[in-house]
């Protein structure tokens, strides 16, 4: 685990990163995201439909002992993590959609998380008393929304300042990702060496399979590929720190340590898998951009006819 200082530092860095993310956006981007509001609904569906069920399914099929099963299900029931926005930014996804999904899933977390936890815990015959810290959920929202809004404002005020902050936020984002990868492995190598392969499979699978299912769901519900990739990242990337907090508040002693294993390992591997997926998605977006650049204009007759009518209507 991280020390308190590191946690605070990470929190501040997250705010700077979100400031940079905000500086890459305009309100128009949010309006474009809202043009297809299904996107956000699909995101919520994936977040609270697919992920908890996936956590539960992995725990059952892999025969996880209760503490690990609790950890997995808990992880599945979490809202989207703020890091999903950074990865969406780097994968050239629809950042405004990602931020809206994170905000929405976090907003409903206060209600949805306890409900889902109770449902799946009882299904598996596990204790179902959890403390979801509403204050911390609110804090997540503040860290997310306030810097984003300030970033948008700064960019509107002066695009030079906005672009500089965006660059700083992006660089810091890369730094934080590298920092997490570089420090967590040596810190937890003992844990990593003694962990059973099924646990690895479960924690890595939760993220990766979650992304895949999120993508399939979004595509199935007719989202364009770029939105679907955004929804995939949002689905797979859960708010790990919130899960850790819930565990710390709910459990004690030995049990606490055992339940923590799944969220901790998940948080480590999701950074690795998301980074890889981001590189892949970015390449896809770039190729699509190029293809659009050279694409033919649709020449279907009805479109041309309406165009003619419109042109005739506006001619003086």
């Amino acid at each position: 685990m991280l020390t308190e200082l590191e946690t605070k530092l990470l929190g501040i860095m997250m705010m700077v990163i979100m400031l940079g993310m905000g500086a890459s956006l305009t309100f128009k981007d949010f309006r474009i995201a809202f043009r297809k509001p299904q996107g956000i609904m699909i995101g919520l569906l994936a977040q609270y439909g697919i992920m908890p069920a996936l956590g539960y399914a992995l725990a059952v099929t892999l025969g996880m002992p209760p503490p690990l099963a609790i950890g997995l299900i808990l992880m599945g029931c979490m809202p989207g993590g703020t890091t999903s926005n950074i990865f969406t930014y780097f994968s050239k996804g629809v950042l405004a959609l990602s931020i809206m999904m994170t905000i929405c899933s976090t907003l409903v977390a206060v209600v949805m998380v306890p409900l889902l936890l109770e449902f799946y815990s009882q299904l598996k015959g596990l204790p179902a008393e959890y403390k979801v810290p509403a204050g911390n959920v609110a804090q997540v929202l503040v860290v997310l929304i306030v810097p984003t809004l300030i970033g948008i404002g700064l960019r509107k005020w002066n695009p030079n300042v906005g672009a500089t902050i965006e660059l700083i936020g992006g660089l810091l984002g890369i730094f934080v990702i590298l920092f997490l990868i570089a420090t967590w492995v040596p810190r937890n190598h003992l844990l990593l060496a003694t962990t059973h392969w099924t646990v690895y499979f479960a924690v890595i699978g939760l993220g990766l399979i979650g992304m895949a299912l999120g993508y399939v769901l979004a595509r199935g519900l007719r989202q364009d590929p770029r939105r679907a990739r955004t929804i995939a990242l949002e689905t797979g990337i859960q708010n790990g720190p919130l899960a850790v907090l819930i565990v710390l508040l709910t459990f004690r002693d030995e049990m606490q340590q055992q339940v923590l294993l799944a969220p901790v390992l998940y948080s480590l591997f999701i950074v690795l898998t998301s980074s890889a997926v981001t590189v892949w998605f970015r390449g896809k977006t770039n190729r699509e951009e190029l293809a659009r650049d050279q694409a033919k204009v649709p020449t279907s007759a009805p479109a041309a006819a309406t165009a003619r009518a419109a042109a005739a209507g506006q001619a003086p």
Partner: protein
Amino acid sequence: MDRPAPIYDLKPWTTHYGGAASLPPLRHRHLAELLRETAARYAAQTAFTTCMPNGMHGSLTYRQVDEYSDAFAVYLREVAGLKAGARVALQTPNCLAYPVVAFGVLKAGCVLVNTNPLYTPAEMQHQFVDSGAEALVIVDLFADKLDSILAKTAIRRVIVAEVPQFFSRVPRAVIRGVMRWWNRVLPPIAVEHVRLQWALAEGSVAKDRGKIDVAHYTAGLGLETLALLQYTGGTTGVAKGAMLTHGNLLANLEQSFAVGRSHIDEGREVVLTALPLYHIFAFTFNLLAFFAMGARNVLVPSPRPIGNLQRAFDNYPITWASGVNTLFNALLNEEWFTAFPPKHLKASVAGGAALQHPVAERWRRVTGTVIAEGYGLTESSPVVAFNPLTGKQKPDSIGIPVPGTDVRLVDDEGSPVPAGAPGELIVRGPQVMQGYWQRPEETTAAIRDGWLHTGDVAVMDGDGYFRIVDRKKDMVLVSGFNVYPNEVEDAIAQMDEVLEVAAIGVPDARSGEAVRAYVVPLADGLTEEQVRTHCRRLLADYKVPKTVEFRRELPKTPIGKILRKELRAEYRAKSGA
């Protein structure tokens, strides 16, 4: 040579002019006078803004452009020691350095040589030697290309400019940092050079010390004085310099105003300049015309990928845009553009290559504004014809000749063809160049009896609107029948499986010449027979390509025109003819 006056000389198109049919007399003796007068009128307003893909920007007011270009003029004349009429090459993408240098050269009474920054060293050498350029302003990104060629040219001064020129300190440092350390596109410069900001400082000091009146440099200039050597590949291969005078450009400005006046609010417009300024279309239309109209020019260094334009549209209230078909097409494929089209846009103009009918219609529908296609050549500064912005616009047509321009369609003997028949478009007017720089033979071939022969075959309809049928030199003669490659290309382009196509004529034992098509398929699997079957449904037999070759891409000019001559040269080389 006594023939009845051809229909073209009756100018049936003049009834479609929105304004006056004749061109007003020019109000200035040369461009420097126009530039100085405009700068004084709009002094405090923003003249140019460079907008980078990430939104970083820098701007110059009219006064700053005036002062910096004065300083550069003094630098050229006093520090670099150039005489009036000396050629100065300018080789940068769109950036704030461009107007400062270009205007400075004109104010110094020198001749500007626009040079494509993407040229290879060999192409640069040809252009520099041919023009006899004595000084060069080059962007730092490509300055390493000078290493191998500079000694072979007459260039004595190299001045290095940069894309974020005149940006404030932090954005400039960030952009240069990214260029140097991340993109690694700033090469070391081996040749002796000065930085533009240093040259401007030297010029400014020399101006103050010598109490120099910059207007003095252009005192003896007139409309006939050479202003610009604009190189054009033409279809014959070697690039040659079209000699455009101050008078040519001033006249073409007036002619452009005649087209756009109804939609131009002087001192209030914001024009998007995504096309390169070294190209004659953007040079005359965006740089000169909109500067003269007191507009703010938003310069985009590179419009590819098209997302690079998003910040320009986000951050500035664009009212006018100029572009080529590919640019409008690309914008229409972007959600950020189509979902919230620019609110302040009033009008757009397309040139350079044919504006496809579906692109134009979609543009009108999406933006709710007028888009007009025009026609021009480097040799005519460039505007010859335009669809009027108010009144009748005809799709797939280049519109009507601009005021003050005579146009005829003629056959091979130079006799006018009847209305409705295809003939070579010839042009006479104040915008037609003096000739090709130091190429008297090619000049006499191009300009006969004062008429510029464009090499384009066109048709005029009853209203006096013209439609380009094809390039004369590209025409294919199959068993005595004329085949226009455009017609074949249009037919093949209708296939959904086809991305791009070009058609050329190749020697054929039986028919003299035969049509050969080059097709870029959207996906693999398209066969030669499918293409020919498709053509047979739409075209007469002799027009159907005899051979079809599939390839991944077609050779193109920097602004996206397909180069048929390269395909022909390639075929000749391969067949050993």
